[in-house]
């Protein structure tokens, strides 16, 4: 996308060989860590969500069972969706902070540092 792709006019990564970076073991590892975490988790929470939706849609009798007072199974299932959403959020943040950010920062600084050197040489 030409010049427009860059976030600033003075893009520190303007002349990086991205295919080279993509092929490095470190980047492959970062990609693997990211995908092996987010994909299974995305599938899991979607299945859990649709389980809830299908129960609410087709298992009215089951969802209408009263657990305590007027609190039904359906209400509990609904509230559990809130709980699982909050839990997944916190889990992902902690994973990203521990396993993704350090690696990404590492790759970024090594490329950007390299770039700055290259520019100095040109001058």
């Amino acid at each position: 996308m030409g010049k427009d792709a860059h976030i600033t006019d003075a893009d520190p990564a303007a002349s990086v060989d991205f295919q080279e970076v993509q092929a490095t073991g470190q980047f492959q590892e970062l990609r693997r860590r990211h995908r092996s975490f987010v994909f299974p988790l995305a599938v899991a929470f979607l299945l859990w969500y649709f389980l809830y939706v299908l129960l609410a849609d087709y298992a009215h009798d089951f969802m209408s069972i009263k657990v305590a007072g007027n609190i039904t199974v359906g209400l509990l299932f609904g509230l559990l969706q809130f709980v699982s959403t909050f839990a997944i959020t916190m889990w992902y943040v902690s994973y990203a902070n521990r396993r993704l950010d350090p690696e990404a920062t590492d790759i970024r600084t090594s490329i950007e540092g390299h770039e700055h050197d290259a520019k100095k040489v040109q001058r």
Partner: protein
Amino acid sequence: MAAVANLKDTTWLNMLIFAVFVAITLVIVLRASRNNRTAADYYAAGRSFTGGQNGTAIAGDYLSAASFLGITGAIAVNGYDGFLYSIGFLVAWLVALLLVAELLRNTGKFTMADVLSFRLKQRPVRIAAATSTLAVCFFYLLAQMAGAGSLISLLLGISDWGGQAVVITVVGALMILYVLLGGMKGTTWVQIIKAGLLIAGAFVMTIWVMAMHGFDLSALLGHAAETTGNPQLLNPGLQYGKTDASKLDFLSLALALVLGTAALPHVLMRFYTVPTAKEARRSVVWAIWLIGLFYLFTLVLGYGAAALIGAKTITAAPGGVNSAAPLLAFELGGPLLLGFISAVAFATILAVVAGLTITAAASFAHDIYSNVIAKGRTSALSEVKVARRTVVVIGIFAIVGGIFANGQNVAFLVALAFAVAASANLPTILYSLFWKRFTTQGAVWSMYGGLAAAVILIAFSPVVSGAKTSMIPGAHFAWFGLSNPGIVSIPLAFFLGWLGTVLDKNKESEVKQAEMEVRSLTGIGAEKAAHH
């Protein structure tokens, strides 16, 4: 019921509170925008917001009139079936958090099209992405304007078409002013203030309702069922359980809700107002907490409205289903709380409309004008000028559309915007981020196919014609039985994206693919931008 009759006596108080709010926010917008110089300032607020601020603004954007008026009303009238909206709207954030937000922040600049066209052919993909952005924003704007209409008819007791049209026009004009003056920075501040007020107001009402029932949720539910005279209010199926088609409609709605959020252009654009991917993540986390808590409040408010006012009174009130929350506020705290809550609801509509308008304007000016018409030979200054003119045009469209959509349930209308977004945008966003082989043809087929399918199915659904609640009740051309198109159009768009790609003889640039992947995961070039 007395509540509705008494409302008219407090009109002036409501208007006064509302006017004070508008005045305060206008001052803030003006102050915030004093140094809007570059395009990055106007569209992306100079990337100067923190994750917490942006997360609150996202919550402000997201907790629109649909969430507050629409969901409360849906739960009050349809009970458990209304609860699905809350759950779908919330769970959808996980798609944004896990798959989209950070990667998008790292690869784009101002608009959704920046990301989608990153490694594909510029022209066709940009035009397609801008088209779907404009379509989604239009549907969303309709919903907000319908909300404004409902609220106004309730507050001012204006039930005639002309009177409501005048007020919608005034709201629209105010919104244009906000966006013209403030740009993204001003809009973001309005969102932050409004989110704070809305959540605080809902919190107070929730505690109030719970206190009236001895902080016993079960007692509240019992009271709601009793007032409504229908124990089914607590069980699923009241709205969607009647026929096989309506059950399928529920499923379709659920699908659109959960996949729509991560494809809403005005939400995606918010990720550009923060300096780094980490801040983008932080903003989603803030948003998830605020939005989740708010939806727990709406559960109490919805059943509270059912218990204290009753579904029949709510549906009979001017403004219909959407009036549940304001009526509950009046029942609880009299004119003062009603004035506060309706001012906040007004402000909500105003702020969300501003956010949508700026997104649509940015998309037109940046994607169509700057990159397609002028082919990049334009200055940032003239781009912002075009964006400002677009704001005026979109504002006028929104006003006209809103006058016609008046009276529909707002949450329901927003769900249509979600369906359009999930169909037109989500497949291409996910494919271009995660599928190396994905090509321009796949993107174009998926976007136009998904968009066309969603819009056409809505046009021929009971939403537009054939039923008592339709926009054109007299006409009968509804051959599509479901009111939400998601279950057909979303899988179709995913399929078209795949088909277009495998049938495409052209290969996309592997260099660009590598660049996009490395940038998206590491934030090269994007991270330092804010520090310079």
